[in-house]
């Protein structure tokens, strides 16, 4: 039995900010959910089920928040499911929601993911002392920076590639009214001269901590066809994970990442990845992940991804494969939402609804998310054509 064709008909985001002190967690979600409903021209009556995504509960210290949020969102009585796959969760959540429509379990699903980082301390929430193993000792940046150092050593990439990624994404963010960071006066030299936090990662090569939520409405083929508004058709969804520690694990380009990419591109019928994809929203919380993922996703040969950064291929202006036109995770990082924002921005691009950050003629886009110790992956490909 073939899958039901599935369409994105609504996207809603909040303004991302370090502290959204004006709203509660529930208020934050309501903003995103109702914006998605508004864009879709729908009400809760049209929604059959809700799929929520959230990073670890102790990021805010609220256990199983999906239970009280059902009431706060106004969707009591509807089937609700919660997804949790670390930092990739926003992407996985969208994929689970898509699977409900694809499998014809539900006709229209609202999916939402969020983080309210200001209500706790996500940076250190996961760096807990454990008796059986030594601590990372240095938070998320401390975990990932040795992987980037390894990539730098194997690719012989110029030292400032990471700064180029960060500067590009911060420039892109200026065109995105939702982005957390709008650094109008930032210069490339300031990025280079910003303090080293987790050598080789500089302060300006690091994502911010954000509050924010992102929601989408997914519906079936008949409703997608009948929809009076822009539509993004889902061409492929894939998820993979792998153990964080096993002999021979390639941490620069994990096997799960490569398999996930192969799967999603095959589903979408894409053979020449670089040529056939018009825009990429990629999970890049630390700058050097852009060249690393370009290789892992098959847009560049191994050891060559940095060249696409250097020659401007990933810039919105003049690049043939624009990456993170929204400003990416480097400009807005509401952790649980970050993956869904990538998926949603990819959808907005093929809907022609990305405003000033729109890539001209964008018809096919990739949304990408990763999480944990770069061990959970979620991707989707959306297109303007069915």
């Amino acid at each position, binding site marked *: 039995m073939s899958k039901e064709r599935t369409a994105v008909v609504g996207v809603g985001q909040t303004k991302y900010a370090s502290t959204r002190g004006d709203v509660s967690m529930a208020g934050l979600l309501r903003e995103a959910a*109702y914006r998605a409903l508004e864009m879709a021209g729908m009400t809760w009556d049209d929604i059959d089920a809700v799929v929520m995504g959230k990073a670890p509960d102790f990021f805010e210290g609220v256990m199983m928040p999906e239970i009280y949020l059902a009431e706060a969102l106004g969707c009591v009585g509807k089937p609700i499911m919660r997804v949790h796959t670390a930092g990739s969760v926003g992407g996985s959540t969208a994929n689970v929601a898509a699977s409900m429509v694809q499998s014809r379990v539900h006709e229209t699903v609202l999916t939402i993911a969020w983080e309210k980082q200001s209500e706790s301390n996500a940076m250190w929430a996961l760096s807990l002392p*454990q008796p*059986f193993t*030594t601590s990372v000792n240095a938070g998320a940046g401390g975990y990932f920076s040795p992987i980037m150092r390894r990539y730098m050593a194997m690719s012989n990439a110029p030292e400032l590639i990471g700064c180029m990624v960060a500067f590009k994404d911060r420039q892109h963010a200026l065109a995105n009214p939702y982005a957390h960071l709008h650094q109008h006066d930032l210069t490339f030299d300031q990025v280079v001269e910003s303090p*080293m936090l987790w050598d080789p990662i500089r302060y300006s090569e690091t994502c911010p901590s954000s509050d924010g939520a992102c929601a989408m409405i997914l519906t079936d083929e008949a409703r997608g066809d009948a929809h009076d508004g822009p539509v993004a058709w889902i061409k492929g969804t894939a998820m993979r994970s792998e153990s964080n520690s096993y*002999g021979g694990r390639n941490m620069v380009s994990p096997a799960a990442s490569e398999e996930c990419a192969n799967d999603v591109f095959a589903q979408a019928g894409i053979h020449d990845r670089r040529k056939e994809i018009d825009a990429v929203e990629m999970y890049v919380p630390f700058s050097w992940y852009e060249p690393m993922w370009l290789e892992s996703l098959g847009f560049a040969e191994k050891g060559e991804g940095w060249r696409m950064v250097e020659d401007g291929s990933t810039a919105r202006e003049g690049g043939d494969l624009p990456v993170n036109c929204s400003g990416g995770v480097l400009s807005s990082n509401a952790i649980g939402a970050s993956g869904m924002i990538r998926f949603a921005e990819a959808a907005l691009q093929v809907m022609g609804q990305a405003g000033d950050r729109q890539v001209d003629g964008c018809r096919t886009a990739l949304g990408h998310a990763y999480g944990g110790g770069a061990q959970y992956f979620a991707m989707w490909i959306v297109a303007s054509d069915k």
Partner: protein
Amino acid sequence: MPAQPFQQDPSVPPSCVVEVTGVPEKVASTEPVQSVRTPIRMEYTYTPGRALSDYLVAMKDKKIIAERCPETGQVFVPPRGVSPVAGVVTAGKVELPATGYVESFNITRVPIATRPDLEPPYCSAWILLDGASISFMGLVINCEPESVKLGTRVRAVWKPDDELEMAATNILGWEPTGEPDVEIPDIERIGQKGDLE
């Protein structure tokens, strides 16, 4: 495509949430509360299981116990009792020397709220023990962080004997041995082939 593109303005709330809700009149004059701090603490009993128990017990005698995957030959430390590659129980115990090399590292230059004992800059590294198939994290100590390289040979620095516990924290860190750096032939998959012995 519709004739008029849908544009969302982040400064305009969705119509259904624009209604302003006020506080009851009798408390209207009090200072508004925007946030409260509620420190939360969780304590739980951890049961390490067979493989990790052996590892932790051996730690008290300054020994590092790993386990070998019977199918791939890979040596896992700390042992979890299972091979994540072959999906089988690891059993063959292997005592590893407390020496190895730095697979990769970071130099942390920002103070960490939860670790007042760590004064920046300090080096946090992935240490690949001699004979192991995977690395684990540790601090490189007793040297300038800037002197650490990929391939720097290191040995464990243990707590004083009278402070030893059944815990991985018995290893305070790893100090350079002064031996020549290890040449890393395949940096993408450093030293982790599992074809040991």
